[in-house]
Structure formats: C-alpha cells, structure tokens
C-alpha cells in the first residue's frame, strides 16, 4: 500500500477475504469500481449461506422441531443485528426484498388514507425507485407529486424545500446520498424542516448506510430504506425501518402466512411488529448472511470506512480532474460528496468508455443510473460512474485513469471537446 496517512484499514488483508477480487477479466486483474450498483461479498458472507443450508435450514416461526427452532433463532438474531446497526428497536425493523420493495410498501401503505390534492414531495435527484412507486400511486389517487430542485452545484436546494412545504404536504421522501451526483444531503436538517411542517420524512439510505454510520434516531427520520447487496450482503434482502407508532397504524402491504395472528374465513388480525410486514416465508438465509455482512463491516469499523473512502475519493477526484476533456458531475466540495464519481469523457458515450475499460479488467457503470429525470437536468443521456468501497485501492484508481487515457486515444482527440 502506498497510502501516506495513518492506515486504519489493511486493504491488502481485506482483499484476501473477497474471492471474486482474485479473478481476471480479459487477462487483467479485476478492478471493481461499480460498488454503487452492488458490492462484492467476502467469504464470511458466502460461507454463512452455505452453512445455513447445510446445518439449519427449516421454515421460521412454524415448526417446533430442532431445525425450525434453530432457523428461527438465527433469523431473529439477524433482525436484532441489522436493527442495532442503525439504532432501531426490534419492532421497527422489517426485512423486505430490497430498498425498492420497502419504498413500494410505503407508497402503498402510507397513501391509503390520502385524498385528492394531497402532496408528496420528492427531489430531482431521486433514483427511479423513489419516483415511480409514488408517481403511479399519485396517478391512481390523484395526489400531487412535487420535486425539490437541485442547485447548479448538484446540492439539494433547501430554500426550494422550504418553499414547497405546505399544509397539503403529507410526506417527503429523499435520498441520503445521490447515486449519480455523490451528494450527501443534510438529512437531519431536512427531517427538522419536514417535521416542523407536520409531514412524514422518508429516507432512502441505500447509498449511505453501506458507507457511513447512520443512526435513524439521531436523524429522526420516520422511515428509512436500504438494501443488503450494496453493503457486502446477499441480494434479495433489504430493510424497511419505521417508527413504531407509525408502523402500528399502517396497513400491511403483502398478505399471507406469518403476518397474521388469527385468521377466520371472513377476516384476519395482523401479527405484532415487525412480522406484520413480513408475509410468507422470508429470505432466511439472506437475512442471516446479511447479519454476517454487518458483523464484518463493524469489525472494520463504520468510522474507518468513510475515512478511507474519503481519501480514495479525493485521490480519484484529483486524478480524474487532470484528464483533459473529462467532466465530473456533482459537488466540487468533497466534504459534501460520498465515494462515487460520475463523469463523461468528452463526447464519448459512457458505454464506449465502459467497453474500453472492460478491456483493462475495469468494471464501471455506464448509463443513466436509474435516474433518467436527473440525466435530463444534467443535459446528458448517460454518464460513466466509478464508485468505491473499502476494498478498493489507489493503485486501482491509477489503472482507471490510464485506461481512460487509452479510451480517449482510441476514440480520437476530435471526439473530446
């Protein structure tokens, strides 16, 4: 390692835990810089899934045999570990499929009693998952969807938020960290503004919780959503956090087994929290492996991770800025930015950039990042994006930079304006 500052993360040691980081792509060592899309998994998490199926597999909350009790115990322990990670009480943390499902649950359940003309406030930087569910419900129920503007610097326009909040605003749903701009939104401040207006505040924490300590009580959000797979856990498991008093009054989103207390032919009573929102057999192995992922992250330290990523991001930002014709989107003030950088290289389409990089074994994202409305605002149809995690290194950023130089050469200077 060539990091000059005090090294709290032993990257080389960490990388040994991730089997996939040893593979070669086109004959070159894999450089994985698509962590905002999904992250790689350490052997500890992968082995946990195997271990569960080999030693504990049974349905939870049902049988009274040895395996069922063992599986239930482990599943409930996973609930506890994931809940503690964000400082949520046991009853307030529900397992879903992913952040998208959690947002669909909220869009469905929270709007049940809304009436025509009620307003839902989102922001212009939202991911499709925090637009489309609201948009479709809004159409059906004739609700009004509004969007907080972003500034030219790529920050949320807080004055516009204040201006748009009014008596009809029932809820505000905003991402903590933008998956395109990298912007870290001041969510504690936003929660206060939203609550002063007597509206609910929903936090899309899919891009923040993997990378920084997030305390839902401290932020005082009413709901928060995130996904396991963006934080070295398996796919197919995610979280809905909600304040207890709110979850209690909400209707379930999915109906079926495990979420009921009593069923008669004509009516049913809902189970206690959090099970009321977990219909059917859950992703038991996924939840247990997710808890293992959180143990892994906590061992590294949720203070060390952002510190290390900040250093990587600063290094990448400086190096990328030096490439002639490369445009970086989002805040220039690195204190307001998380570990991802979206950019375009002159007029070269992001997919062409990604293809040339792939020759060098480098994985980045090229496309609209599920944020087509934001792409429109930026005046582009797509961007390339490099996103980092604690297992990336400065050497990998150097490889990225030299591959970008190659791409520029390949497509010719005339394409880079």
């Amino acid at each position: 390692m060539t990091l000059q500052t005090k090294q709290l993360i032993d990257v080389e040691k960490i990388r040994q835990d991730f089997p996939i980081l040893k593979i070669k792509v086109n004959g070159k060592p894999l450089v994985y810089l698509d962590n905002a899309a999904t992250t790689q998994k350490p052997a500890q998490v992968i082995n946990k899934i195997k271990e569960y199926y080999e030693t504990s597999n049974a349905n939870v909350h049902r049988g009274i045999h040895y395996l069922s009790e063992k599986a239930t115990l482990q599943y409930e322990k996973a609930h506890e570990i994931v809940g503690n990670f964000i400082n949520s009480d046991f009853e307030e943390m529900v397992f879903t499929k992913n952040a998208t499902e959690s947002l669909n649950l909220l869009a469905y359940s929270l709007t049940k009693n809304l009436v025509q003309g009620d307003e839902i406030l989102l922001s212009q930087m939202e991911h499709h998952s925090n637009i489309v569910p609201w948009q479709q419900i809004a159409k059906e129920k004739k609700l009004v969807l509004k969007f907080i503007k972003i500034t030219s610097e790529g920050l949320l326009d807080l004055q516009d938020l204040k201006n748009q909040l009014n008596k009809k605003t029932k809820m505000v749903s905003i991402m903590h960290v933008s998956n395109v701009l990298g912007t870290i939104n001041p969510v504690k401040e936003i929660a206060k503004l939203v609550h002063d207006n007597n509206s609910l505040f929903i936090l899309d924490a899919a891009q923040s919780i993997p990378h920084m300590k997030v305390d839902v009580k401290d932020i005082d959000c009413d709901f928060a959503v995130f996904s396991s797979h963006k934080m070295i856990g398996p796919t197919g498991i995610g979280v809905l956090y909600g304040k207890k008093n709110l979850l209690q009054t909400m209707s379930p989103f999915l109906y079926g087994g495990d979420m009921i207390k009593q069923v008669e032919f004509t009516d049913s009573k809902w189970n206690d929290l959090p099970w009321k929102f977990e219909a059917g057999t859950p992703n038991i192995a996924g939840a247990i492996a997710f808890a293992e992922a959180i143990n892994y992250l906590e061992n590294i330290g949720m203070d060390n991770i952002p510190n290390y990523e900040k250093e990587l991001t600063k290094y990448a930002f400086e190096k990328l800025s030096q490439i002639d014709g490369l445009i970086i989107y989002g805040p220039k003030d690195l204190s307001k930015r998380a570990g991802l950088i979206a950019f375009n290289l002159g007029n070269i389409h992001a997919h062409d950039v990604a293809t040339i990089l792939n020759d060098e074994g480098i994985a980045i994202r090229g496309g609209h990042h599920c944020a087509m409305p934001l792409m429109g605002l930026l005046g582009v149809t797509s961007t390339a994006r490099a996103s980092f995690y604690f297992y990336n290194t400065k050497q990998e950023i150097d490889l990225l930079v030299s591959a970008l130089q190659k791409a520029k050469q390949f497509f010719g200077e005339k394409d880079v304006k």
Partner: protein
Amino acid sequence: MSSELMYREHIMDHFKNPRNYGHLTNASFKHKEFNPLCGDEITVEVKLNKDIIQDISFVGRGCSISQASASMFTEEIKGKTIQEVKLLDRNFVLGLLNIEITPVRLKCALLALFAVKEGIKQWEGGK
C-alpha cells in the same frame, strides 16, 4: 470479450463519419426511438416516393455501436420499398455490422431498425 472485436475499422469509420446524418426537408414521416438501457436516442426521417424510400436521415445521441448501425442501416435501405424494409429483421442489421455483439449492446445495434420499423407502422396507421 475484447473490444477489438467490436470496434472494427468499418464500425469506427461509420461512427466517426456517419452517413445520412442530419435532417430532411419534406420528410414523409419521422420517428424517435429510445433505448432506455443506455439512454441512446435516435430520430429517423424518411422521404417516400410512392412506396420507395427516396431519402432517409437520422439524428441522435448514443454509443458508437448505435450510431454506426444507424449510419450503415440507413445507407442500406435507401432505395428499398416499404414492403422490403418491413421484412428486414435483426439478422439483417447484425450482418451489416459483422462484429461480435454482446447481449447488452444488441439493443444499441438494433435501435435504428426499430426506429424505422416503428415509424413505418405509425405512418401506415395514420394514412
């Protein structure tokens, strides 16, 4: 797959010097098509003489594959009848490109074909 198999000389030639790029005066119909996966977009403009494609142009933004494909495809169908073009399928376009296309890039490669076919369909529907 290495990009060398994709970015062959004829592809880069069409990408860097696209044929039929721009607008037509008196187009009989035009049609815009998107590729939501990449954010590619293309608008084709067609001028018909009876049922023959007398002239065709395109404008758009996209990756080298989508742009080169549009350039080659428009060049190839100029002079063909509407009936002939309606019978063309993806294999025709892939044959023109004559490169290895990964599944992800297939949509880029076929965007111009879709744009022309959808344009024809709507034009016929509106006749």
